[in-house]
């Protein structure tokens, strides 16, 4: 097929992944302050922890277009800046630094060592750096280890040597760390298993006897050579290593963490072993052994300690005592290990201890936490277990030790950072009846699971909300003199008067201000040095500092309809369509310009820009007329009130605002004219500062009401507050400086104005109905608001009630005791010992036991109650696996909730004792569920769907249609349609799209007359489908477990054939092709996203936007695919992609095109994330690319931002 006829989509991330693969700590800015660098998916983000406020704020985030597998920070001796090494899938080692002045990452070294991709023998999995920053070791899971020597040259630049090999074939590495050896030759420690003998021995004897070895690799700096220095067997179950401080700080060596024990090992020391304490409690299994899953070592003032975390989330403090010599000096010889319970925090993928006394927990599931240390658990009553009571020999079994978990004593939670990881399912619906739909998600694991509502918007903090005596039409604030820092008055205009309030300790009415109180006000301005003006329909009142008033009356039979002011100029429009212009004299009086300008229609709005620094006037006046035009008039003394340019609009303008804002295209600030229309449309155009030409107009629909525009100040930048049926804020993005327009999560306002007082420096004042509101916006970096509702167990699937704003969530947790078992154990324990303490599961998790399942169905009301409204726990070790709402034709189309469960399911390898299909009736508008009956099926029904008034279920590889009977479901028809296991169903008409766990999708047609299911088209590639969505009758979009998104289409002819009237005999008798169906699907698009798609939707995200494909990813990504309409845009973006990939190659050294083609060549997809990196480039590079593409920088930026804003946020 010719490429010109092909379909193209623009793939863009709306919200980047929030799962943290690894987090590291260092002084990356070269100052004393420590920063946190996290890797999430392909994103590398640097965060600044603020010790005074106890907050973590992201500074900069970059997409490296590669898989970040390991990170490490290191510092050259004598330097005060940490560098970052990235182990990725590029087959290259990357050394980068953070440049604080530009707020960017910059690559210093990129050395190729092997093939790209994540492979068994290509290093990248493990990364260890000598604590003195002299060498690093990068290793693969099997065989390969490469050592790079890091040094500096005479210019104090970092140098990297060619790699030294330390390969050992047929050896697997479990863990790796660098030893702290001071300034002796660097040593790296690895936990290894050699499988060569086990692979040769048919009896299995050798496998049984395989040893796990602790191996020291020494880099001889003199000989430039790596040797296997020391090998010693350790506990067979060991999985982790931690570096023990050496040199002057400690004994050096490593901690080896195994099942149930932690052992100290070093080549010249004895071994010391302590057990990992187990939880005490009535519901705990005393036999269950723990593993260490995360940990951190912290050094301070000569002392050090470890915090080690088990799979339950319990933190243990481990300390090492050293032998003292006769003088009481430490000898560097280890005396004992001590371990005791510290606190419990969520299970972490990384733990970081900051020098400022904070603990950063990058959680494996759910929100990341930031804790402050209250104390270090030094003098508490926890039992300490010492290595002196235990043998260090791994073959000697350990006597178990126990501790009592308790609520936090040492750590104090100061901030949680929202994370959607793992995001298991999502739905997009507009339940709160706003302009744009919300995204509903289920995420998290175990007791930390949540149901979240995601909404596009900025968070607003309200300061004042007070009712006024009558409904005001407008509000202003003003200073009294030019030098004032804060506003002094709030002026409110009513239909028949004006009210002045003074701002002080309290806000109260003042009357002796010189303001005319008997008429409404049109504008208020602080003019010149110290005077004020009030513009009302009958004239202009100039109030001097000594309360003298100069009044300029409007001409007879005419009134003022619109006004614009700044600190030196005033322009008013009369009802006759005339514009009168005033300028302030040197003596502080307003002088009228002797000519009036007659406009063609009635003037609806005016705007004067601000007088910029060093100027005497703003050069332009913007005039909006009811003939749907905006004119720019010159205010230059030589050409006063002459036309400069005209812009035609689609409706009459309701508001204008000339404002200079920071701009990504020029790098500085640019003058913009903001235009609001009566139709609710908002436009932003660039106003040329010299010629007054208008260019680069961008349009956005804001709401159903006429738009009003106000200049406000937020977080130190000039922003525009646009009010329509909901309030919006236009501002520059903190990182890209690109213009953002985001709705405020606030009541609709009729009027707004800037507000600044001592208590609230950057606030806004607004009118809503009869209320005066003062509010501020604290954060501009997050425009997705989250509201979360806690759930009981790991959510698996959910669905929305067909009519009501309710969600039904099925949840299940493996290896967790069910509530009834827990209750029984508690009962037993109460009878025996009287112990019935129950730990809150949100903090401590549920009691675990292998083979058990805890599962439930929960009903969530996210709109009104904002909580779980009812819960049904499943009994008898059943775990819910699928859910559907099915209207049964045989029950007068009443909709029932159908839940599929699996009994005694084991995940690895997958097995179960069959499954059930439960039927529930909706009660009380769906808030309660009534159990009707359940039907046993041979395999867990992993997919359920309502289909033509009946239920279709995927049971193993069988597709089956059921009708609802009195006692159970009645089997109507079934067929084997896929090779392995059905995991998803979609339908339109009489077509069912069946997705298989590993064999992509199959289209099945149901012939009603004959009651047969006939698969007629399937795929030629096996895709391990996770989720699918029908895009149209022929096309299905899907995602797979490897992180690909694809679109498959059934050829038109085959689609028509399948729906031909008649028995379908022609379909049944058609000969299958290569053991499949007779026909094959065509691949339309294919792209690698890295994150595993968990749901796909064809939907709209903004009011008036087009249909797009929105997907959610397992690690918390929300992305979208936007179809291109014209070929022209595709060509442009393809060229841009090419230029960007060449001019700004990905940071970690992965080729962009190869990355997006990870499993299959990228097809029909433009990478929007790459295109958006254009905003982050330096001006020179931007211009270079623009020149290559034969366009202006502004044009390119406009095209890129339009792709996003037209359909999404």
């Amino acid at each position: 097929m010719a490429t010109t006829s092909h379909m193209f989509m623009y793939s863009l991330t709306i919200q980047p992944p929030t799962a943290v693969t690894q987090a590291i700590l260092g002084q990356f800015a070269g100052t004393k302050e420590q920063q946190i660098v996290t890797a999430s998916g392909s994103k590398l983000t640097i965060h600044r922890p603020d010790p005074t406020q106890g907050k973590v704020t992201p500074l900069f985030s970059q997409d490296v277009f590669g898989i970040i597998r390991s990170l490490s920070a290191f510092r050259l001796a004598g330097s005060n800046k940490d560098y970052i090494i990235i182990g990725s899938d590029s087959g290259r080692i990357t050394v980068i630094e953070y440049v604080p002045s530009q707020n960017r990452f910059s690559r210093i070294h990129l050395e190729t060592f092997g093939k790209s991709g994540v492979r068994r023998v290509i290093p990248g999995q493990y990364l260890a750096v000598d604590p003195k920053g002299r060498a690093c070791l990068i290793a693969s899971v099997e065989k390969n280890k490469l050592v790079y020597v890091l040094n500096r040259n005479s210019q104090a630049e970092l140098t990297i040597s060619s790699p030294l090999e330390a390969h050992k074939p047929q050896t697997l590495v479990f863990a790796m760390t660098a030893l702290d050896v001071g300034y002796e030759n660097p040593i790296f420690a690895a936990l290894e298993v050699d499988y060569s003998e086990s692979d040769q021995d048919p009896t299995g004897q050798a496998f049984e006897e395989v040893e796990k070895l602790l191996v020291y690799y020494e880099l001889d700096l003199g000989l430039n050579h790596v040797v296997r220095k020391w090998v010693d067997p350790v506990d067979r179950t060991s999985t982790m290593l931690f570096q023990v401080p050496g040199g002057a700080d400690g004994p050096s060596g490593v901690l080896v963490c195994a099942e149930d024990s932690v052992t100290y090992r070093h080549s010249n020391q004895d071994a010391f072993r302590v057990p990992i304490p187990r939880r005490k409690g009535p519901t705990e299994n005393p036999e269950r052994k723990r593993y260490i899953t995360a940990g951190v070592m912290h050094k301070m003032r000569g002392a050090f300690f470890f915090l080690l975390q088990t799979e339950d989330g319990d933190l243990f403090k481990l300390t090492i005592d050293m032998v003292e010599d006769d003088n009481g000096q430490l000898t560097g010889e280890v005396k004992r290990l001590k371990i005791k319970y510290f606190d419990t925090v969520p299970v972490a993928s990384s733990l970081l201890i900051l020098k400022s006394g904070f603990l950063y927990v990058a959680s494996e599931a759910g929100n990341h936490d930031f804790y402050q240390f209250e104390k270090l658990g030094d003098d508490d009553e926890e039992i300490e277990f010492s290595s002196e009571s235990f043998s260090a020999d791994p073959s000697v079994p350990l006597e178990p030790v126990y501790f009592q978990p308790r609520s936090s004593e040492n750590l104090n939670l100061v901030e949680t950072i929202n994370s959607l990881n793992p995001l298991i399912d999502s739905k997009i619906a507009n339940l709160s009846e706003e302009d744009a739909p919300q995204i509903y998600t289920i995420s998290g694991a175990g007791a930390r699971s949540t149901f979240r509502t995601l909404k596009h918007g900025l968070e607003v903090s309200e300061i004042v909300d007070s009712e006024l005596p009558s409904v005001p039409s407008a509000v202003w604030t003003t200073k009294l003199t030019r030098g004032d820092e804060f506003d002094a008055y709030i002026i409110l205009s009513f239909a028949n008067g004006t009210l002045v309030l003074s701002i002080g300790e309290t806000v109260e009415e003042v009357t002796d201000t010189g303001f005319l109180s008997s008429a409404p006000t049109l504008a208020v301005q602080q003019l010149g040095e110290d005077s004020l003006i009030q513009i009302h329909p009958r004239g202009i009142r100039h109030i001097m500092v000594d309360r003298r008033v100069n009044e300029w009356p409007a001409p007879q039979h005419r009134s003022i309809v619109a006004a614009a002011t700044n600190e030196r100029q005033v322009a008013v429009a009369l009802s006759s369509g005339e514009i009168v212009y005033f300028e302030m004299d040197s003596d502080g009086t307003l002088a009228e310009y002797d000519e009036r300008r007659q406009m063609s229609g009635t003037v609806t709005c005016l705007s004067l820009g601000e007088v910029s620094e060093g100027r005497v006037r703003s050069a332009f006046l913007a005039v909006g007329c009811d003939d749907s035009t905006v004119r720019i008039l010159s205010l230059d003394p030589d050409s006063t009130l002459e036309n400069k340019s005209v812009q035609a609009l689609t409706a009459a303008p309701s508001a204008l605002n000339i404002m200079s804002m920071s701009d990504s295209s020029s790098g500085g600030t640019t003058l913009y004219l903001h235009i609001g229309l009566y139709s609710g449309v908002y436009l932003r155009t660039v106003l040329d500062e010299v010629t007054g030409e208008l260019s680069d107009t961008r349009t956005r629909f804001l709401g159903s009401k006429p738009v009003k525009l106000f200049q406000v100040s937020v977080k130190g930048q000039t922003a525009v507050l646009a009010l329509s049926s909901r309030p919006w804020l236009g501002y520059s993005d903190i990182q890209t400086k690109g213009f953002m327009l985001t709705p405020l999560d606030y009541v609709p306002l009729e009027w707004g104005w800037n507000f600044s007082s001592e208590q609230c420096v950057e606030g806004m004042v607004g009118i809503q109905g009869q209320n005066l509101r003062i509010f501020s916006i604290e954060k501009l970096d997050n425009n997705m608001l989250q509201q979360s509702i806690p759930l009981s167990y790991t959510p698996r699937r959910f669905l929305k009630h067909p009519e009501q704003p309710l969600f039904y969530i099925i949840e299940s947790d493996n290896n967790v005791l069910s509530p009834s078992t827990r209750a029984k154990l508690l009962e037993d324990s109460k009878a025996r010992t009287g112990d019935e303490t129950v730990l809150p599961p949100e903090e401590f998790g549920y009691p675990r036991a292998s083979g058990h399942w805890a599962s439930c169905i929960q009903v969530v009301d996210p709109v009104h109650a904002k909580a779980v409204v009812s819960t049904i726990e499943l009994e008898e070790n059943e775990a819910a696996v699928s859910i559907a709402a099915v209207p049964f034709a045989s029950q007068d189309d009443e909709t029932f909730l159908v839940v599929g469960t699996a009994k005694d399911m084991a995940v690895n390898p997958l097995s179960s004792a069959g499954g059930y299909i439960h039927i529930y009736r909706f009660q009380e508008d769906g808030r309660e569920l009534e159990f009707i009956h359940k039907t046993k099926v041979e395999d867990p029904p992993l997919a359920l769907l309502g289909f033509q008034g009946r239920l279709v279920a995927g049971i193993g590889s069988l597709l089956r249609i059921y009708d609802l009977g009195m006692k159970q479901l009645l089997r109507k028809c079934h067929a084997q349609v896929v090779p392995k296991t059905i995991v998803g169903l979609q339908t339109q008409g009489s077509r069912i799209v069946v997705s298989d766990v590993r064999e992509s999708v199959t289209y099945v047609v149901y012939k009603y007359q004959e009651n047969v299911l006939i698969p007629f088209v399937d795929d030629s590639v096996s895709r391990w489908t996770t989720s699918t969505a029908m895009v149209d009758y022929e096309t299905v979009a899907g995602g797979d477990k490897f992180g690909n998104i694809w679109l498959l289409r059934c050829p038109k002819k085959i689609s028509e054939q399948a729906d031909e009237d008649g028995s379908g005999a022609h379909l049944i008798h058609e000969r299958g092709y290569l053991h499949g169906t007779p026909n094959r699907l065509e691949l339309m698009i294919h792209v690698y996203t890295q994150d595993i798609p968990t749901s796909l939707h064809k939907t709209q995200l903004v009011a008036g936007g087009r249909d797009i494909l929105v997907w959610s990813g397992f690690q918390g990504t929300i992305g979208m695919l936007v179809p291109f309409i014209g070929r022209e845009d595709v060509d442009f973006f393809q060229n841009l992609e090419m230029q960007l990939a060449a001019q700004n190659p990905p940071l970690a050294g992965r080729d962009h095109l190869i990355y997006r083609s990870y499993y299959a060549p990228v097809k029909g997809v433009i990478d929007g994330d790459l295109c958006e990196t254009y905003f982050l480039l330096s001006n020179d590079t931007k211009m270079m690319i623009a020149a290559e593409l034969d366009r202006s920088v502004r044009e390119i930026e406009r095209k890129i931002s339009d792709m996003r804003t037209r359909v999404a946020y």
Partner: protein
Amino acid sequence: MADKLRTLQNLEAMQARYVGTGHADTTKYEWVSNIVRDSYASYIGHPPMLSYMAVGMGEPREKVRAMMIEKMVRGAGNPPETQE
């Protein structure tokens, strides 16, 4: 003849360098063992995939990772008896 020798040498170099490169006498056991080990190495190396499986199993990621490397030791089970 020299060409053939060079090809053979190249192949041997490849086999030494890239574990799993096959040869004319690759047995089923070797092939399956390689597939098993390659698969587990890939699961561990792709962070989303590891998390996905960890959530499925209801275990922490670190435990699943260690378990998978443990399975790499085993490969495809005991090798077949060699016939002399």
